[in-house]
């Protein structure tokens, strides 16, 4: 944030500079362009306006999708200027570079001045300054300067801040200030923005964003990179023990969860159930619950028992995949119906026994008694289909993210300082006045929130006057 006095200063220098601008060397003209606030304003507006494009034109869609919407010539033109991935286009990045350059140059130009005002404050009040400051007053009192100065000093210290005292040629100057770091808020904000950019670059260069689908019970260490970027091989693997969905009574989804294990050197080193807002982190790699789906075909669960009812185990039949039962034959599940002749879900089995023609039968879910009547050596009962699920994990590594948060913190703090902290300065000068009196001149300034300064200044003056009058009465010099 600049102040009104800066505006004034700029106006004065600019009005004198207009004619000279043409004759200045090119390098200086470029520099003046790079540090100008006008460039900042236009840059911000340009970034805002161009950003709109990418929200109106869907980004990063497959070419076919665009061709459906746009004519050939329009598609070619838009593709040429990267409108389908505009936030990564050369021209948008160029705008961002110009923006960063503007920020950096501004800081280089103005920061030294800001530091100077802090390190070398104007400790004395001269006539010209007194006239130019919005708050100033003069009056005369009796007494000698050093003693009066002590009284003023105490009053200012009590109400505002401890003043610095300078003495020259019998004139005493008191100077006190508050909120001196106010002027640095803007630089902190600007630095914060640049740090965010640096964090983003670190993330882009050293990190990755990837995606992997893992079926229930399987593990993965190889990740597919999105958008045709390089694939990633993790130094460990992740096993999806189980994925599930929980729903509210109304049927709306309540929770998507994956029970994950991290496997390193064939050992499980970490296990965690992740949900949409609760990722798993291992060695800087984050795994997020992102999607899910059904893996391949479903498997049919079939329980097998002897005629006398002794259970022998169960089969998981994949479509048309033969399963051998020793001493019996080969069983295949070939067909499934959701509602078999009004009797509910059913599975069609083909049983091939050695030396016999294949037999073909339907078994109903939950009705083992029916197959019992077939009088075969084994009885099959259909337990239903289980669909195997996979979990879709977003996998990301971003070593720049903490740099980004640091930048965010800095830019927010800087913003608060520059909006709400005011650099308030108060001067008091005690000089020999006419008729052996002491002339007191007081002045104040603030870089923002003038009304607040007026109040502070008034109360300081009241205190100073009051104390001076009091001491005047107590020990008239």
């Amino acid at each position, binding site marked *: *944030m*600049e*102040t*009104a006095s*800066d*505006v004034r200063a*700029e*106006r004065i220098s*600019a009005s004198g500079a207009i004619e000279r601008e043409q004759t200045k060397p090119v390098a200086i003209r470029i520099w003046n362009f790079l540090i100008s*606030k*006008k460039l*900042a*304003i236009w840059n*911000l*507006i340009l*970034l*805002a306006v161009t*950003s*709109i494009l*990418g*929200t*109106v034109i*869907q*980004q990063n869609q497959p070419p076919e999708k665009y061709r459906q919407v746009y004519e050939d010539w329009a598609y070619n033109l838009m593709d040429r200027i990267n409108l389908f991935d505009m*936030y990564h286009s050369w021209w948008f990045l160029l705008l961002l570079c110009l923006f960063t350059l503007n920020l950096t140059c501004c800081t280089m130009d103005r920061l030294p001045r800001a530091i100077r005002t802090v390190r070398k404050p104007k400790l004395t009040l001269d006539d010209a300054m007194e006239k130019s400051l919005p708050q100033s007053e003069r009056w005369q009192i009796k007494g000698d300067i050093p003693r009066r100065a002590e009284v003023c000093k105490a009053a200012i210290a009590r109400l505002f801040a401890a003043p610095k005292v300078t003495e020259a040629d019998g004139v005493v100057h008191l100077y006190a200030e508050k909120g001196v770091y106010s002027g640095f808020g803007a630089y902190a904000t600007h630095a914060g923005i640049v740090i965010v950019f640096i964090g*983003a670059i670190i993330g882009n260069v050293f990190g990755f*964003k990837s995606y992997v689908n893992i079926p229930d019970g399987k593990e993965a260490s190889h990740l597919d990179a999105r958008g045709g970027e390089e694939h990633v091989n993790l130094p460990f693997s992740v096993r999806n023990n189980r994925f599930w969905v929980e729903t*509210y009574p*109304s049927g*709306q*989804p*309540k*929770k*998507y969860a994956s029970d994950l294990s991290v496997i390193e050197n064939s050992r499980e080193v970490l296990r965690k159930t992740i*949900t*949409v*807002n609760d*990722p798993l982190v291992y060695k800087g790699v*984050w795994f*997020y619950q*992102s999607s899910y789906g059904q893996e391949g075909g479903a498997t049919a669960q079939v329980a097998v028992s002897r005629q006398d009812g002794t259970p022998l185990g169960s089969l998981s039949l994949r479509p048309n995949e033969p399963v051998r039962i020793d001493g019996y034959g080969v069983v295949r599940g070939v067909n499934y119906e959701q509602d078999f002749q009004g009797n509910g879900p059913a599975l069609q089995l083909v049983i091939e026994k050695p030396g016999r023609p294949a037999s073909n039968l339907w078994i109903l879910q939950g009705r083992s008694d029916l197959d019992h009547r077939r009088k075969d050596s084994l009885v099959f009962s259909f337990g239903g289909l289980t669909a195997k699920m996979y979990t879709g994990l*977003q*996998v*990301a590594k*971003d070593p720049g*993210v903490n740099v*980004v*948060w640091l930048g*965010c913190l800095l*830019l*927010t703090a800087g*913003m*608060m300082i520059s*909006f*709400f902290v005011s650099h308030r300065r108060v001067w008091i000068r005690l000089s020999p006045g006419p008729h052996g009196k002491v002339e007191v001149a007081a002045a104040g300034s603030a870089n923002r929130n003038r009304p607040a300064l007026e109040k502070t200044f008034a109360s300081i003056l009241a205190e100073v006057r009051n104390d001076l009058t009091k001491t005047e009465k107590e020990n008239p010099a």
Partner: protein
Amino acid sequence: MNTLNVQLFDLTTLLFGGASGTYIAAMYGKKETLARIGTWICVAAAVISTVALGVRWAESYQMGIGRIPVTNLYESLVFFAWSVNLFYLFVEWKYKNRTFGAFVIPIAFLTMLFAFTNESSIQPLVPALQSYWLHAHVITCFVGYAAFAVSAGVAVMYFLKARQEEAKTEKGVIGCFPSTKTLDDLVYKSIIWGFPFLTAGIITGAAWANYAWGTYWSWDPKETWSLIVWLVYAAFLHARITRGWHGKRAAILSIVGFLATIMCYLGVNLVLSGLHSYGS
């Protein structure tokens, strides 16, 4: 039959309508008493809508899906109107001038009318929204939006007043407005409150996105529009201290900023597609 919270919000809508009418009538009739009634109606609306938010929150717990009432379009509209009203009352109290009401409270009223046309039942939270970041993100954003709404209302007043000051007259309704200096100051003050909140809203949103999706910025339309809003107000802040840009141009940026805010808040959901669909 609507639940209690919705009835209370309907009552709030009526009160905002009443307050808007009263403020506008007070402005045209130059009746300070009327304006004072407007203030009291706004205070009543503030109390009732606050109670309604509390009731809605409690009702969600009774339904077994307890969550903060800022998670769908209806709730966000109501919360926006609530924030605008409170921010306005603060400004009115601080500046001791009731003419702003005619320009700000209608924004709250229109918002409530729009909310009225939306589905108002309490729905459970989809998995993506089940996070504590939700609270910080939504509240910061909406305080920012409310401040921008007040700023835009005052910026319109600034234009009217500036035109009159140029013509050097003090006639009619506009004559009662505070000076352009005060109005400019208020436009700025509202923005310096709104801007850090918007910034915090964007940052909490980014942090949440990073925690839920693994990326803090994905150029999703909502994100991009929040950035556009941020850029416009950043331009405003610089314009105000730049020769040739303060005054009217800065006021234009304040109004453009609020239009961008509306686009970010509603337009993206109603016109564009993306991750922020208010669960609908």
